[in-house]
Each structure stands twice: as structure tokens, then as C-alpha cells.
């Protein structure tokens, strides 16, 4: 499997590009005015499940930093780091799933969603607000509420879009051992 490292690098590049396009241009209006639902975390969770923690962390880091650059408000480091942390934690699920072999059953759906729940809770419930307080000295109740709202929205989008993507991808892959030798 020598090809794997090159493939991971390309996956990081294309993944970050997808993350950017979804985050920047695919805005689903939410019930709260001026807030859009970020679909990119569903994609990130799927890429993590397929390519592992290192790819996940870098896709989150590069993709989020590029989005911030393109808006020109400077890089909001605390949230960029939280995206990377989500990538690392979510990437741990890749060892338990065999998406590339076309396996994604009911049990895998549960595993995937338990992991994304925990990863989002840590990234937006702890990492992002704590870094906001340490780096920018913002008031605690504001950043924890922002983190909670953002985290909850991300959990819902990941549950819907991430799961859909995994199911669709697994269906499109040839199953492991689906070919038998005729005798």
C-alpha cells in the first residue's frame, strides 16, 4: 500500500477544497436570522471516517483557515483549532469502520454517530470556548453559548448529511469478497 501516502495528501487537498466550497457557498438558511447551517461538517466527518485522523485534522485546519481568509476578517484561531480537533477525534472512528470495503450497516451507523456526537461535544463545548477565553479574553457565558449552539447545529447536520454520505459511498463501493472464483 505504498500509494496510500500520496492518496492521503490528495484527499487532504480535495477535502479542504470541498470544505471551503460547502462552507462558503452552500448556505442553508436556518430558523435563526443571519445564521446559516454549515454543511461542511457532515463532509468532514465522512472524510475522517474514510481517511483517518491526520487527514481529518488537516482538512479541518486548512479548509477553515481558507474560509476565514476569504472573508477577510482574519483567522479566528480558536475555532480553526476546534475544527482540527474535531477532525482528529472523528478520525479515530476510521479504525472501526471499513467504508472503503463497502461496509456500512446499522451497527456502523450507530458507531459513526456516537463518535461524531462525542467529537463535536469536545470540539465546540470545550476546545473552542476555552481557547476564546484564553486567547481573546471574551466573556465566558457568551462563548459557551456560542459553542453550544454551533455544536448542536453541527451534530444535526453531521447526523443527517454525514450518515447519508457514508451510506451512499459504501453502496457505490464493491463489497469485500463479493467476487468468487468459479471452479
Amino acid at each position: 500500500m505504498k500509494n496510500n501516502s500520496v492518496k492521503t495528501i490528495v484527499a487532504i487537498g480535495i477535502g479542504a477544497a470541498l470544505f471551503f466550497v460547502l462552507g462558503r457557498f452552500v448556505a442553508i438558511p436556518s430558523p435563526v436570522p443571519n445564521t446559516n447551517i454549515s454543511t461542511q461538517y457532515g463532509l468532514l466527518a465522512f472524510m475522517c471516517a474514510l481517511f483517518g485522523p491526520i487527514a481529518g485534522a488537516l482538512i479541518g485546519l486548512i479548509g477553515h483557515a481558507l474560509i476565514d481568509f476569504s472573508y477577510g476578517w482574519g483567522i479566528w484561531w480558536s475555532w480553526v483549532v476546534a475544527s482540527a480537533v474535531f477532525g482528529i477525534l472523528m478520525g479515530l472512528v476510521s479504525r472501526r469502520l471499513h467504508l472503503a470495503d463497502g461496509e456500512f450497516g446499522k451497527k456502523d451507523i450507530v458507531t459513526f454517530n456516537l463518535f461524531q456526537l462525542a467529537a463535536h461535544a469536545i470540539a465546540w463545548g470545550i476546545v473552542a470556548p476555552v481557547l476564546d477565553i484564553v486567547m481573546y479574553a471574551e466573556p465566558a457565558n457568551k462563548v459557551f453559548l456560542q459553542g453550544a449552539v454551533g455544536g448542536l447545529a453541527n451534530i444535526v447536520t453531521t447526523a443527517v448529511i454525514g450518515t447519508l454520505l457514508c451510506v451512499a459511498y459504501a453502496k457505490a463501493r464493491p463489497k469485500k469478497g463479493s467476487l468468487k472464483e468459479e471452479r
Partner: protein
Amino acid sequence: MRNIFNYVDRPSPIHRLTGATKLVCLLLWSFAAMLTYDTRLLAVLPVLSLGMFMLSRIRLKDVSFMLGFTVVFMVLNNVLVFLFAPQHGVSLYGTRHKLFSLGGNYVVTAEQLFYHLNLVLKYLATIPIVLLFVCTTNPSEFAASLNRIGVKYSVACAVALALRYIPDIQREYHDISRAQQARGIEMSRKQSLVKRLRSAGAILIPLILSSMDRIETISNAMSLRGFGKNKKRTWYMGRRFTAADFAAMAFCALLLAASLWLNRVNGGRFWNPFQ
């Protein structure tokens, strides 16, 4: 397709600096502005950054679109801080000078206003520099500069790939989205939230599955050309440092040092005029 990162090609002293220099300066500058809440330094930084903006010959109308987002973001953040913690300034500075009351807990104090002034100054100190970086750095040179400042070339190449494929993926997204809308998919406010998410899925699935094929093709092409065989790579867009580059980096390092020194002198991140 319009260039999303807004690179403006125009000869100026800032454009002549290498991408690596501008990246280092951006990092040093933004850390200098981030680490301190000393109003004196925060008041100097916006003046300096506006001066550099003039030097770069970037016009206001080149960046007005990005500036709009930033102003909204800045105002929203300030309003949220006040709504959630109207007494944050009091707890930071330890004194309380009441100005007037808006009812309930919302008493406006001099400390709170001073804290907001610092927040706004922080934005004004960093925004022009970020805009400057985005407008004067050729995206193709960006990956080469990442490698120059010590990021592994495989990661730098991943960034280059991302920048290269963003326009392609954007175009593909629009094609798929139009095709699906023609088949009756609705993503506007008229639909319920779950329906909206599901229809987003109907667009994203073809987009992402075709991107997976793209990953396969590109990585095969790169392996065939021996990518990743050697420890080092040269860059087509890489440039040598000149005296101006070293001067710019030294200046920004000085700013960071000043910021750290002020934090020591003030005995914390805040400069307190109320005591």
C-alpha cells in the same frame, strides 16, 4: 470564474516582498495584536496598518466586498458581548464607573465601553493586514511560502491542491445544484429544516462521490510522476529573500516583542487606566 481570494496584481513595495515574508509578518502581527489588551499599542497598530495599506496601492473598492462581511462580524460580536456580559469590563478592570442605565442588569459603565473600544481596536489592527496579505499574495506562491517557513512539502502541496481545485469544485457544485433544482429540489426557507438538509444531501452526494474519483485520478497521476520520492522539492513560484524581506520580518518581530513586553510591564494582558 471570479477570483475568490481577491488577489490584485499591481506593482508596489508590498507586492515585491516574498510570500513567505508576508506570511511570517501576518502571523507575528496577528499574534502581537491578539496577545495584548494594551490600548496604547492597539491604537498604534491600526495607524501602521493603514499606512501599509496606502503603500500597497490597494484601493478601497478592491476590498469593499470583504470589508462588508468584516464590519457585520465586528458589530455582531460586540453586540453579543454586551448582551451576554454587560459587566465584563467591570470584572476585568476591577472598578465601576457607572454612566447610565438601560434597565435591569444593563448598566453602561466606563469600563465596559473601554473594553469594547479595545475589541474594536483589535479588529482595526488586524483586518487591514489580513486584507493586505490576501490581496498582495499570489495564491500560487502561498504554498511555496508555507514550505519555506518549515511546513512539510506534502502539506504545502495539499494546500496548493486545495487552492487549485476550489474553482473546479465550485463550478461542479453549481452544475449539480441546477440539475437537481430542475428535478424539483427545494432549498429555500419555504421547506422544513429536515427537508432542506435532505435536499442538500441530494446535491452533496453526487458532488462528493465524483470528488472521490477525482482523488483517485490525481493521486495516480502524482505517483506516476514520482511524487513523494525525495525529501525536498523546489517550487516554481519560490523566490529568494531580499533585504526588504528581512527588514519587514524584523519589524514585525519587534511589534510582537513590544506586545509581550507590555504584558509584563502591565502585569497582565490589560492596561488599566482606571486605577
